[in-house]
């Protein structure tokens, strides 16, 4: 031996024997091998190493550490380790090794070359640790994670299927409502067709028209993704287009001027009835004979909510023949009450002007 490079000098009394005793007593498993002898055999191991591996000193000394390896020892890690040792580089890693009794354990290790003064590798020193518990923990953690992920996936699938069912149900109900409205409307119109001209027929036709207005409301609902709101502007345009279809446009015009408003779906049916009733009333009574004129429907936001103005330049309330049943007017007043609104009939000179104020809460129109 040519001697070793000097590091920090040892205080007096700390001899090699002291180190040998300290290493022997250390709880960290340690082993030294000698690469200058064939096959790099173990030349020293401490008590902790013997405890870890289950071998006696005689069974290890003179043998290569591969004695600890077994069928599941990772060949890739071994290759990395051997390459490092051949090149005289340190190695740090974990191997699945086997005790003498055959039980495997995760063997964490650092291996460092020990060089002489000339720089030649004369020993390898390795400090080791049993990493089996850590591995078990990691494995348990991974299992727990996998289980958690599975559970999340299952729940997501459950929720998705619940949502699909809900959507399918909504479509089914929507379809049935629309179909039933169609049946009701057809029923009324059929009866109207078979009723002789007169009051009864007019009443049936008027009812069919009201159902038509409700149908327009329903057609607009659920049509654009958001099931809770409807586009008031488009809705009014559609509603009025139905009324305008029967008009002699040269004599009477009907016009709408509405702001873009996304209203709560619950308001669709009452608003449809309200606008239909007032506009129909104006068209029917404001322009007797060959009188010309226009009906306008305006809707704007106001401080209280929404202001709806239905105005005509016809003969005015005083001249219009009184409606004996007054059903239309009662209907309008009931609907306005349902919408918690207020209603004002006024003479517009010429014609009639009806102003309805409907309060809107945040839920009605965001």
């Amino acid at each position, binding site marked *: 031996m040519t001697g070793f490079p000097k590091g920090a000098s040892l205080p007096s009394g700390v001899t090699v024997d002291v180190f040998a005793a300290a290493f022997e007593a250390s709880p960290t498993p340690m082993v030294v091998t000698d690469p200058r002898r064939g096959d790099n055999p173990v030349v020293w191991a401490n008590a902790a190493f013997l405890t870890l591996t289950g071998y006696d000193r005689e069974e290890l000394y003179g043998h290569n550490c591969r004695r600890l390896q077994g069928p599941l020892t990772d060949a890739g890690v071994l290759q990395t380790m051997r390459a490092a040792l051949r090149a005289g580089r340190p190695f740090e890693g974990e191997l699945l090794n086997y005790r003498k009794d055959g039980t495997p354990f995760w063997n964490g290790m650092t291996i460092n070359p020990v060089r002489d003064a000339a720089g030649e590798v004369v020993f390898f020193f390795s400090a080791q640790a049993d990493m089996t518990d850590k591995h078990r923990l990691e494995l348990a953690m991974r299992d727990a994670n996998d289980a958690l992920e599975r559970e999340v996936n299952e729940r997501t699938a459950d929720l998705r299927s619940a949502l699909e069912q809900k959507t399918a149900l909504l479509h089914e109900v929507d379809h049935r409502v629309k179909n039933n409205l169609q049946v009701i409307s057809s029923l009324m119109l059929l009866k109207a067709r078979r009723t002789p001209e007169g009051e009864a027929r007019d009443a049936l036709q008027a009812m069919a028209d009201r159902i038509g207005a409700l149908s327009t409301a329903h057609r607009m609902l659920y049509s*654009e993704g958001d099931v809770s709101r409807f586009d008031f502007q488009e809705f009014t345009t559609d509603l009025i287009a139905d009324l305008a*279809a029967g008009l002699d446009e040269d004599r009477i015009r009907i016009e709408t001027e509405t702001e873009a408003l996304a209203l709560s779906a619950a308001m669709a049916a009452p608003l449809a009835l309200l606008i239909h009733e007032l506009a129909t009333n104006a068209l029917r009574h404001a322009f007797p004979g060959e009188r010309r004129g226009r009906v306008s429907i305006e809707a704007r936001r106001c401080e209280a909510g929404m202001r709806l103005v239905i105005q005509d330049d016809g003969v005015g309330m005083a001249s219009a023949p009184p409606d004996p049943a007054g059903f239309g007017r009662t209907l309008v007043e009931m609907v306005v009450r349902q919408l918690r609104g207020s209603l004002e009939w006024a003479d517009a000179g010429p014609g009639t002007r009806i102003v309805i104020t409907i309060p809107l809460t945040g839920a009605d129109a965001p």
Partner: protein
Amino acid sequence: MAAVTEAPLRILVVEDEVLIALELECLLEDLGHVSVGVAGCAADAIALGRTARPDVALVDIHLVDGPTGVEVARALSGDPRVTVVFMTANAKRIPPDFAGALGVIAKPYSERAVAGVLDYVAQRRAGRTPSVATLDGFQPAPDAGGGPWTGGSWKREAP
């Protein structure tokens, strides 16, 4: 109601609700068209389509034998002389290619919507290119200029 300026159309009504079918026939008559018959199931509809030689078939999706209106549309529109128009409250069932149909009238429909669409069909059959812009409650098929079908969306195109 839109005036019929073209010759009356011969119309097949494919609808399983008898009340709707009966009323629709009355309406078609009012509009100056001719009903060539009513079919409530797929087989009757396809058979009538062959024998009654309609110009137009108004086809509901849900019939007595299930949602077979789509296959009825496909069979009837195989004859280029027949214009198929869906008439349904269940537009979600319509496939992206509309099964050969020209478009879909939404239920519940207004008389004006039916009149407008039939006028549009009559004009198309006469070789003109009428506008669909004023037709409420009607969605043309993508082939007929309705834009990509998103399954029951009635949103109007921005002007």
